């Protein structure tokens, strides 16, 4: 920092006044002319020091300053000697600096380094670090101060820069820390989830295990060699061995009686990977030796890790009991059906008898007429022929009535055939006409033309319609009414190519409370009814793939409808 042309003696240093008081001499080496080596050394150090050095009297006047200081503040030496330390110090440092002088320098002779700024000649501020000593005379009285002043602009800049970097770093660190914390939280969350799901999986596994073990359906897994790998309790029960006893044993060794039927099926499932489901199996297991039982089995391939079929799972349901109940139920239904048929016939017998009496009466009249003509000798061959033809025709009619009466009793199985809905209804009308005449009920036909043919058992459907009309009749007779009692037998086309045959009456209607159970067995409103009529009707109708429905007419009265699929849609229809 020192300028080379100034040499070791500052040229302008001695020139400005005021003159250095004599007290300063020992420090300043008084008398520049003297050239003791110590003094020269000091002088050299003083001038070449990189740090500014200044000597200040007690009033703060700058007595001496070195080149570095001069460079630092930008004033010339002579200018400086007219200035004071406080004069080139911004006001804001004055108090603090006074305190340092007062509390440190004057007390113990020096101070700890401290920082402040100087106001340069060009008006800019320069940050400095200061060390101050107290200068005393030989008697120990304070003379002034030495100050060593270091320009810390660069340090400050570096410090600021460092600070910036530090802050930046801190930000980065904080940021990263936050990221880390978030990551940690996320990890913890995931870990918790994982733990939970593991627990859940475990629980589910245990549940499944429990279900597997205790399912009311037989379950087992067989490997490719048909060895039992897993067996649940139900299957063990079906087989008649403990579940553990199965494990590792081959199917054919455990259940030799079923092997012949099932082993080929198992092989097929294992070889082709195609499941076999709903297979009906009959046979014997050691559980009940000598008793043939029935199961429904489904066999599914199980793929191993390599994707190939490695095992097979079997689902086996015992159906022996269900089959037994089903067949009993069928027998029972059949029996009930017979009972109902017979009772319907009983109800019909009266009108049948009436109907039979009609042709008998005609036959009687004709035969008597013929006899009379013969007795009187007036009989012509033409007359007799005509009479005999009438008799024969009425006889046929009587036979037809008897056949019709007997037919429902004889018939058991469904004998479906093509039927015209209107003909079916007209037949019912004929059968019931006398009955409705007796009961004074108006039986009306309301037939739609051009209905499709249906496919079904004539006798069964007749049975259903007879039953429905008789129900309607009983409903009508059960109440007093001012209006004329009437039953309408109606045919009409319905949705999906179906035909509806409806029985409508103008009676009291079906009680609201009865709708839900109307078609259930043993539900009846009749004092002596079995409650089987509608239930059997429904069974019969459903056997045809038909439906039976009941409703009340808005005008009062009940409406029972039989919906029959057209011939083409009938489930009874078998392609010839």
């Amino acid at each position, binding site marked *: 920092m020192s300028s080379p042309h100034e040499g070791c003696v500052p040229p302008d240093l001695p020139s400005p006044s005021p003159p250095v008081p004599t007290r300063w001499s020992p420090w300043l080496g008084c008398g520049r002319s003297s050239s003791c080596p110590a003094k020269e050394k000091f002088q050299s150090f003083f001038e070449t020091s990189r740090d500014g050095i200044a000597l200040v009297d007690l009033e703060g006047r700058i007595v001496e300053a070195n080149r570095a200081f001069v460079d630092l503040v930008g004033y010339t030496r002579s200018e400086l000697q007219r200035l004071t330390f406080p004069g080139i110090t911004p006001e804001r440092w004055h108090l603090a600096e006074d305190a340092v002088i007062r509390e440190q320098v004057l007390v113990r002779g020096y101070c700890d380094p401290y920082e402040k700024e100087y106001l340069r000649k060009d008006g800019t501020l320069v940050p400095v670090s200061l060390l101050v000593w107290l200068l005393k005379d030989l008697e120990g009285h304070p003379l002034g101060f030495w100050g060593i002043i270091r320009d810390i602009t660069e340090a400050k800049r570096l410090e600021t820069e460092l600070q910036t970097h530090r802050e930046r770093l801190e930000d980065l660190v904080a940021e990263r820390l936050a990221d880390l914390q978030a990551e940690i939280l996320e990890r913890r969350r995931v870990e918790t989830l994982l733990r939970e799901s593991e627990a859940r999986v475990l629980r589910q596994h245990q549940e499944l295990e429990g279900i597997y073990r205790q399912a009311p359906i037989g379950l087992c897994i067989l490997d490719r060699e048909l060895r039992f790998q897993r067996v649940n309790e139900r299957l063990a029960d079906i087989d008649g061995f403990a579940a553990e006893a199965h494990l590792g044993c081959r199917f054919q060794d455990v259940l030799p009686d079923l092997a012949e039927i099932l082993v080929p099926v198992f092989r097929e499932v294992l070889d082709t990977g195609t499941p076999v489901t709903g297979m009906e199996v009959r046979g014997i297991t050691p559980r009940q030796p000598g008793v043939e039982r029935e199961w429904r089995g489904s066999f599914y391939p199980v793929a191993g890790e390599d994707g190939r079929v490695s095992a097979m799972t079997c689902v086996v349901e015992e159906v022996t009991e269900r089959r037994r109940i089903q067949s009993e139920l069928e027998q029972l239904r059949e029996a009930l059906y017979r009972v109902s048929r017979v009772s319907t016939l009983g109800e019909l017998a009266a009108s049948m008898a009436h109907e039979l009496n*009609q042709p008998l*009466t005609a*036959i009687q*009249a004709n035969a008597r007429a013929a006899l009379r003509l013969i007795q009187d000798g007036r009989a012509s061959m033409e007359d007799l022929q005509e009479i005999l033809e009438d008799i024969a025709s009425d006889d046929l009619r009587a036979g037809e009535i008897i056949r019709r009466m007997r037919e429902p009793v004889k018939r058991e199985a469904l004998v479906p055939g093509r039927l015209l809905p209107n003909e079916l209804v007209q037949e019912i009308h004929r059968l019931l006409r006398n009955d409705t005449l007796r009961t004074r009920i108006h039986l009306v036909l309301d037939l739609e033309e051009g209905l499709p043919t249906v496919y079904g058992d004539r006798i069964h459907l007749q049975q259903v319609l007879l039953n429905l009309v008789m129900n309607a009749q009983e409903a009508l007779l059960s109440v007093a009414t001012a209006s004329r009692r009437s039953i309408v037998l109606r045919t009409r086309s319905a949705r999906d190519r179906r035909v509806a045959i409806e029985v409508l009456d103008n009676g009291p209607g079906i009680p609201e409370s009865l709708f839900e159970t109307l078609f259930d067995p043993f539900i009846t409103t009749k004092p002596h009814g079995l409650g089987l009529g509608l239930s059997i009707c429904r069974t019969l109708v459903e056997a045809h793939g038909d439906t039976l429905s009941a409703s009340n007419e808005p005008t009062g009265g009940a409406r029972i409808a039989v919906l029959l699929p057209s011939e083409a849609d009938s489930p009874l229809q078998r392609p010839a």
Partner: protein
Amino acid sequence: MSPMPGLVHLVDDDPSIRRGMDRLLKVHGYEVRTYPDAAAFLEAPDGPGPACLLLDLRLPGLDGLGLQSRLAVRSQDLPIVFLTAHGDVPTAVQAMKAGALDFLPKPFEEASLLRALDAALDRSRLLQLERSEREHLSRTFQTLTPREREVLQGVLAGRLNKQIAFDLGIAEKTVKIHRGHALRKLGNPSLPTLARMASLGDFRVPPGE
């Protein structure tokens, strides 16, 4: 035996029965008309001679009992023999109470049928006789004066001439004259005959009322 001729109306909805019965009854000498239902019968005109109705109890539309009551309202004196294919006792009782002459179950015996029909036709003849007598009487009664009717009424009530004279506020002698005129107009009947005549036709009704 040759039955007395008569007209049998047969109402039965069964065509075979109509045919057979028509044949049988004609063989037996009856005149026969058949109808499939009550309405057809009601539309047919009355015949002049004795007639009866052979009526099936169950008919479409108006049934046997309904037709019977319809005829009673019309005060038509047509004896009815019911036919039924079904032994329905309550209905039979109802029919008989309403004046049916007989009730035959189908199929019937020929003899029973003929007996019932003859009884019905006899009844018809009797009714016709009564009706013509009644018509004759009412014509005769119409020739009586109001005073003669009053006097006859007293006579039939068993009152003496004197009492009748007192009742009517006229002289006994005048009563005798009215009585003589009235009886002469009626053909001088004995008292019992007069009583029977009075039961057949109501002479109290003045002409024109």
